[in-house]
């Protein structure tokens, strides 16, 4: 039966109500589908970039429907341009809502960044200054997204290569203020923390000390690469094209040590390797999550919230 049709009643779920609690997952790449389907036991979860599944039909939806029958899903928006001053693209927001409605994901997230200006779409996550004015814009945009899709989103911290003179508050302070105003949760990208700290000559541990870890509901890990800037200095680029580096694994364990297990995703978006490589990265993340599952009262924290 086609999993996307149902006539039981409007509250009936089309897919199993899987949760991603305490699990490690990876980016979903359709070329891995045959290998994933042979996997047993079916542990973990998968994340997609929402925009890749906004076409009307075809193999992308077929593959995603199949994977969603067996696994929890995370829908990760890349292009909402929440961080920009312009009103959100209503058409895009409607597509985003339709995707969330259709696939009933365990997790839904977007970026603290902008990518559209006037009518031009920049295929990148661009940074914004952090001040009262941008705080109002971004909070309004998050409210609009959450009201449209009928659930809170998780907001991801960006990777940065520069900071703005116009900023009057730290990124961590800005993010904390957004969670208070909008009730959104957080997606902590540990690789982005590492990359930004290296590029802005700051400390990733200081960042984490100021960051509201208690609101984190998903973690991202990814590979990055070094590139020279025009002054010959080293710049880290959040490239998602290789394994997670040791320093990021250590930073991740530092976080999990304090928070207990949180759904953790290994992102890999270009130079895609064979499934077994992603599977091993996820297994490494899972081992760290499992190591801290018994020693930590994540459930107690949930109960208290």
């Amino acid at each position: 039966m086609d999993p996307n049709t149902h006539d039981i009643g409007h509250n009936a779920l089309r897919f199993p109500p899987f949760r991603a609690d305490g699990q490690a997952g990876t980016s979903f790449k359709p070329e891995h589908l045959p290998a994933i389907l042979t996997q047993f036991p079916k542990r973990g979860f998968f994340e997609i970039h929402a925009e890749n599944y906004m076409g009307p039909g075809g193999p992308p939806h077929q593959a995603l429907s199949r994977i969603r029958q067996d696994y929890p899903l995370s829908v990760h928006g890349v292009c909402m341009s929440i961080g920009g001053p312009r009103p959100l693209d209503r058409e895009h927001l409607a597509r985003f809502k339709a995707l969330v409605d259709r696939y009933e994901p365990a997790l839904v997230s977007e970026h603290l960044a902008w990518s559209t200006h006037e009518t031009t779409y920049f295929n990148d996550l661009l940074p914004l200054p952090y001040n009262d004015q941008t705080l109002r814009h971004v909070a309004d945009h998050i409210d609009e997204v959450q009201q449209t899709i009928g659930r809170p989103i998780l907001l991801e911290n960006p990777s940065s290569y520069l900071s703005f003179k116009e900023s009057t508050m730290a990124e961590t302070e800005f993010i904390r203020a957004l969670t208070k105003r909008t009730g959104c949760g957080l997606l902590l990208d540990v690789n982005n923390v590492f990359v930004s700290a290296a590029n802005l000559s700051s400390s990733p541990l200081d960042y984490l000390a100021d960051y509201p870890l208690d609101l984190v509901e998903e973690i991202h890990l990814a590979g990055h690469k070094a590139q020279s800037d025009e002054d010959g200095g080293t710049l880290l680029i959040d490239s998602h094209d290789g394994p997670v580096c040791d320093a990021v694994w250590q930073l991740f364990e530092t976080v999990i040590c304090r928070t207990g297990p949180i759904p953790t995703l290994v992102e890999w978006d270009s130079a895609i390797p064979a499934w077994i490589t992603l599977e091993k990265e996820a297994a490494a993340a899972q081992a760290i999550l499992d190591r801290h599952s018994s020693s930590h009262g994540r459930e107690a924290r949930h109960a208290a919230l």
Partner: protein
Amino acid sequence: MERRFNIYRNNVVVSLIEALAAVFPATQRITGPDFFRAMARFHIRKTPPTSPLLFEYGREFPDFIAQYEYARSMPWLADVARIERAWLDAYHAADEAVLAAEALTLPAPVDIGDLRFVAHPATRLLRSQYPAFTIFSANRSDDPVGPITATEPEWTLITRPALDVEVRKLSRGAALMLARLIAGGTLAEAAGDAFAACPDFDLASAISGIIEVGAFSDVSTRGVGK
């Protein structure tokens, strides 16, 4: 600060060049990567994407190629790119059941000439003055490319009856018939177009071939409904 901003600017352009290369692999194979990247860079500067859906990008690229000064020695290149763009449209098109091959054999109290067909959402028909289908087919895979001897104009049908995109070369008669049917004409009108241009047109095999590829999703008769 300005220098750091160049990092973003460069990332944007490189990612869009890669997006175009992914949509137009045969075009890139024909030109080679250096030529393609330079051409793509000009196009991106002139026509940046307006939609965050990157699979929608590159619609104006074939027209750009047709005008591109350095591609003048390859006048068929734009048509190869048009087939590739149509391929991606078919890939993402809405899913719909195709018209069954038996549709025309059902006993019906209507004149078969009155039939009108509904094109499947994935169906695209492209005409080239050049053998664009042959060039596309030779370059779309990684197999070695032999010499291409075709010189005639070619019509290409692109559709997706299930999960796999189908790309077929059509005879001129079949293509003229399909063009009229896609435009909403009756089978009699469509066959008329084909016979006028190609006196030896084989109607029965043309219509059954097109139905078999999955170019239609429905059929109806004028005034009668389905």
